[in-house]
C-alpha cells in the first residue's frame, strides 16, 4: 500500500494524474469564486444553483433525444443545466428584491421547486421506453474516479476563465463585494457585475457537478474560501489563499481517495477540505481561535501593566508635595487600595512588572519603580492626562468623569496620536497635572 501511496502522490498512473489534477483545478476555481460568494454572504448560492440545474438536464436530454441525437451529449447537457441554473439564480435575486422574503427563503424556494420539477421530468424520461438516462444520476453523485480527459480539459478551461475574469474585473468585483451602494452611485453597473459573478458561479457549478457531484461542488464553493478567511483580512490575499487551499484540498482528497479506492471519492475530498478548515479555524493568524485568544490575553496583560505603573506614579505624586518627583518606594497595601485589584491579580501584575524590570522589591517589602519603570510610568500617566484634557476640552465631559473614559482608550494611543493631542491642546511640558482629584478607582473590567 505504501508503494501505491507514493505512486499516487507522484501522480504516476495516468488516470490518477487526470483525476487529481482535475480535482485540484476544480478546487482552485471554486475557492476563487467562493471567496466572492463568502464576502457577499451568498455562500449557499452554489447549493441552490446546483439543485436548480436538474430540470435543465432533463429537458436537454429529452430535447436531444427527441431530435434523434445522443441524449447524453455533454455540451448539450451542460447548456441545459446552466440555463435552468442561471434561471434559478435570477429567481432568487428577483424574489429577494420584490418581496419581503429574504435571501435564505428565496434560495430554499428555488432549490426545492426546481429540483422537484427536475425529478418530475427525469421520471417522465425514465418512463419513456427505449431511453437510457442512467448517466444523468452521475450529476448527483459525480463520477470523480472515472474522470476522463475531456472532463479535465473542461475544468482547465473553466479555471482559466475564472482567473481571467477575476483579474480583469478585480477592482469592480471588490467594490461589488464591499459596497454595492457606492458602486452604484459611482456609476458601475451593479446588476451587470452581479450577473457576471453569477455566470461564473454557474459555470464552475455545472462543470463541477458533472465531474465530482453535487455535494462536493457545494462543499468546494464554501469550505476553501471560509478556511482562507481565517488567515487574512486582505482581500487580494484571501483570493490567492482560497484558490490555494481549494487546490491543496483537491490534491490531498483526490490522492487519498485513489489510495482508499473503496470509499466514495467525493466524500473523502470533502473531509480533506474540512480538515483544512478546522486547522484554519483553530490556528489561522488573522481570525483563528487560538491567535485571537493569545492576542486578547496579551492586550489584557498590557492594560494591566500600564494601570499598575500609572497607579504607582499617582501614589508617588500624592505622597510628595515637591516637584520634580522623587522615586521613593511605596507599600503594597497602598497600591492595593488604589485600584481595588484582587490580591492574586495584583501579585501577578507585580511579578510581570518585575520580570520586565520596571518594578523592584525592596528589602523592606515595599515596591519601587526602576529607572526605566519610572520613565515608563510618567509617560503613561502623561498620555492618560492628555487624553483626559482632550475629553474635557473637546468632548465636554466633566473632569470628574474623564478618568474612566481615558482608562479605556489610553492603551491604544500611539506616538502619532500623542503628538496630535499635544498640538491640539498646546501642552508640551514633560509632566501634566491631573485635572481631577486622584482617589481610589475601581478597576474597569
Amino acid at each position, binding site marked *: 500500500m505504501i508503494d501505491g501511496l507514493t505512486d499516487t502522490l507522484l501522480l504516476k498512473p495516468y488516470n490518477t494524474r487526470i483525476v487529481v489534477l482535475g480535482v485540484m483545478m476544480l478546487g482552485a476555481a471554486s475557492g476563487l469564486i467562493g471567496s466572492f460568494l463568502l464576502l457577499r454572504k451568498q455562500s449557499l448560492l452554489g447549493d441552490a444553483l446546483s439543485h436548480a440545474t436538474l430540470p435543465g438536464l432533463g429537458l436537454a436530454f429529452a430535447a436531444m433525444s427527441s431530435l434523434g441525437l445522443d441524449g447524453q451529449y455533454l455540451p448539450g447537457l451542460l447548456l441545459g443545466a446552466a440555463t435552468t441554473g442561471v434561471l434559478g439564480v435570477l429567481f432568487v435575486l428577483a424574489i429577494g428584491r420584490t418581496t419581503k*422574503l429574504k435571501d435564505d*427563503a428565496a434560495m430554499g424556494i428555488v432549490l426545492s421547486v426546481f429540483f422537484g420539477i427536475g*425529478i418530475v421530468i427525469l421520471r417522465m424520461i425514465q*418512463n419513456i421506453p427505449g431511453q437510457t438516462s442512467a448517466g444523468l444520476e452521475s450529476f448527483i453523485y459525480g463520477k470523480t474516479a472515472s474522470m476522463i480527459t475531456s472532463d479535465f480539459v473542461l475544468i482547465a478551461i473553466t479555471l482559466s476563465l475564472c482567473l481571467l475574469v477575476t483579474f480583469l474585473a478585480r477592482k469592480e468585483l471588490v467594490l461589488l463585494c464591499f459596497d454595492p451602494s457606492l458602486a452604484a452611485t459611482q456609476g458601475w453597473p451593479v446588476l451587470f457585475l452581479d450577473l457576471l459573478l453569477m455566470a461564473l458561479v454557474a459555470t464552475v457549478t455545472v462543470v463541477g457537478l458533472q465531474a465530482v457531484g453535487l455535494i462536493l461542488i457545494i*462543499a468546494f464553493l*464554501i469550505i476553501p474560501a471560509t478556511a482562507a478567511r481565517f488567515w487574512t483580512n486582505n482581500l487580494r490575499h484571501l483570493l490567492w489563499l482560497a484558490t490555494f487551499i481549494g487546490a491543496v484540498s483537491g490534491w490531498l482528497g483526490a490522492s487519498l481517495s485513489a489510495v482508499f479506492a473503496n470509499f*466514495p471519492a467525493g466524500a473523502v475530498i470533502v*473531509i480533506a477540505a474540512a480538515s483544512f478548515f478546522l486547522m484554519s479555524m483553530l490556528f489561522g493568524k488573522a481570525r483563528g481561535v487560538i491567535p485571537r485568544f493569545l492576542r486578547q490575553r496579551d492586550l489584557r496583560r498590557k492594560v494591566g501593566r500600564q494601570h499598575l505603573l500609572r497607579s504607582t506614579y499617582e501614589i508617588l505624586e500624592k505622597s510628595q508635595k515637591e516637584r520634580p518627583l522623587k522615586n521613593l518606594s511605596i507599600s503594597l497595601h497602598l497600591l492595593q487600595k488604589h485600584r481595588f485589584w484582587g490580591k492574586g491579580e495584583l501579585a501577578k501584575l507585580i511579578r510581570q512588572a518585575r520580570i520586565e524590570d520596571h518594578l523592584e522589591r525592596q528589602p523592606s517589602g515595599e515596591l519601587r519603580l526602576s529607572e526605566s519603570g519610572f520613565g515608563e510610568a510618567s509617560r503613561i500617566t502623561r498620555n492618560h492626562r492628555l487624553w483626559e484634557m482632550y475629553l474635557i476640552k473637546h468632548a465636554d465631559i466633566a473632569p470628574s468623569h474623564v478618568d474612566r473614559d481615558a482608562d479605556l482608550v489610553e492603551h491604544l494611543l500611539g506616538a502619532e496620536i500623542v503628538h496630535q493631542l499635544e498640538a491640539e491642546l498646546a501642552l508640551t511640558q514633560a509632566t501634566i497635572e491631573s485635572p481631577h482629584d486622584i482617589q481610589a478607582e475601581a478597576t474597569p473590567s
Partner: protein
Amino acid sequence: MNWNINDFYIIIVGVLCAMACALPGAFLLLRRMSMMGDALSHAVLPGLAVAFLISGSRASSTMFIGAAVAGVFTALFTQWVVRFGKVERSAAMGVVFTTLFAIGLLIIEKGANQVDLDARCVLYGALEYTPLELVQLFETSNYLVQIPKAAVVVGATFLLNGLLVALFFKEFTLSSFDPNLAQTQGFHPQVIHYLLMVMVATTTVAAFEAVGSIIVIAMLIVPPSTAFLLAHRLGPFLFLSLLFAALAAILGHLASQSITLFFGLPETSSSGMMATMAGLLFLFVWLFGPSGLTRDQKAKLLRSEDPPALS
C-alpha cells in the same frame, strides 16, 4: 386516469407530510433559517447511519433518535463555527452540513453493505410504494381498516409537531420575533432553537421514506413563504402555511396522475409534482397576490438592495 384507494392513501400521506413540515418550516422562515432545512436534511445522514450501525435495525424509532442527535449536533457545530470562528451563518451551515453528509457517506460505504440505506431512496422517496405497506388500524365486524404505515408515522409526526408548537407557542413566537426580549423574559431562546432543529430533523426523517428529502425541503420552505406574502399576523400565517402545504400535496398527486397523460405516459413522481405544485402556488401568489408583481410594482425588480440589516 385510474383512480383507486391507493391514490387516497398517497394523498393522505402527502398531506400529512406536507403539513408536518410546514409547521416547523414556518418558524424557520421567521428566523431567517430556511436553508437550515436543506442543511439538516443532508446532515441527518450520519445520524441515520450510526443509529443503524449501533442498533442493527431500521426501525423508525431508532432512525428518529439518530436523526434527532444528528440535528442537535448540526445546530451545535454551526453555532460553534459562527460564535468562535466568527463565520457568517450561511457559510457556517454550508461547511457543517457538507462535512457531516460526507461523513455519513463514508460510514455507509465503510459499513459496506451492512447499512441498508439506499441514498437514492433517501433522496427521492418512494411515495408511490406507500400503499404497499399497510398497517392495521382497527377492525369492525365487516371491515378491516387499514392505513399505510407511512401515514401513521407521518401523522404521528404532524401531531407531535402540532403539540409542541401549541405547548410552546409563546416561547416559539417571542424567540422568533425578538430573541433578546425572549432571553430577558426568561424563556430560553437557545432551547427553543435546538428544539426547532430537532423537530426539523425528525420530521425530515419521518418524511424521507415516504416522500423523499426533496419534498421535505419544499414543504418546509415554500408553503410558509407563500403564506408570508399574504398574512400579516402569526395565526393566519400558520394557518395559511398548513393550507398551502395540504393544497400542494393534493394538487401534486392529481397532477402527477393526469398531466403525464398529455405525454402519453402513465405517471410521474408524485413527490416531485407536489414540490412543483407548491412552487406554482407560490408563483401565483407572487405574481397576482395583493402585493404581487402584477400590481404597480414592476419597478421593484430594478430597485437596489435594501441596506444591510444590523446583525
